[in-house]
């Protein structure tokens, strides 16, 4: 068997998204682009309705299985979760996405710190792209 076969020949072509997370966790390898794409796919394809409940169940389940590991780096997961949750604004009670993360075993403090980092990076990007003052 050639190198990377488990991922390249099986998990990737057959789009076995959760198995990709398992491979990344086991390999203990940082693959942020892949992780973000997989989390978004799993959230968007969450089965059931209302969509926020379905997505919340997926968030909790994935966090329980993969946090903390390279398959669930908070700075990636939070970004994906809150962006996907924003597509459902008004559909469910406020805070459902955060509750799902906490139910999945993500500590409140870790959540808070990752959010601060995200907010800082967004603010920095906005400032860098803003009009020059002179």
């Amino acid at each position, binding site marked *: 068997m050639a190198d990377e076969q488990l991922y390249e020949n*099986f998990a990737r072509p*057959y789009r076995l998204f959760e198995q990709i997370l398992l491979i990344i966790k086991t390999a203990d390898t940082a693959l942020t682009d892949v992780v973000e794409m997989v989390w978004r796919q799993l959230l968007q394809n969450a089965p059931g309705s209302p969509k926020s409940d379905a997505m919340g169940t997926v968030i909790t389940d994935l966090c329980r299985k993969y946090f903390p590991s390279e398959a669930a780096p908070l700075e990636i997961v939070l970004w994906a979760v809150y962006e996907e949750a924003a597509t459902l604004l008004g559909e469910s009670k406020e805070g459902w996405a955060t509750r799902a993360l906490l139910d999945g075993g993500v500590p409140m403090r870790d959540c808070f710190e990752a959010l601060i980092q995200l907010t800082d990076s967004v603010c920095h990007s906005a400032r860098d792209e803003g009009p020059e003052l002179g």
Partner: protein
Amino acid sequence: MSWTLLHPAMVADDSDVDLQQRSYYLAQALTAAKSAGDLHADDVDFVTGLQEQLDVCYVQLQVAHAIEVHGDIDPETRHAALGELNKQILTLDRVRGIATLTCHG
């Protein structure tokens, strides 16, 4: 030590032993090795190697199961894929090789 005899024969590549059985033998070997006590440096390496193989074997089992229940794979392709997965257990280094790949397409 007698428990070291469990490993190579039972889980050799391309043997008739399927993945499920390999995981069972690996788990048995690991349990026996860990309970042997008084491990030397070589034994610790061996036990670590067994643990890694068992971890990867578990991942392969999950991938195999997902392929088994996948509705969009035709029977012939499924059979071939499962045959490949049953043939050998990958090493953790090989799994780590995914870091050189991307997931687009």
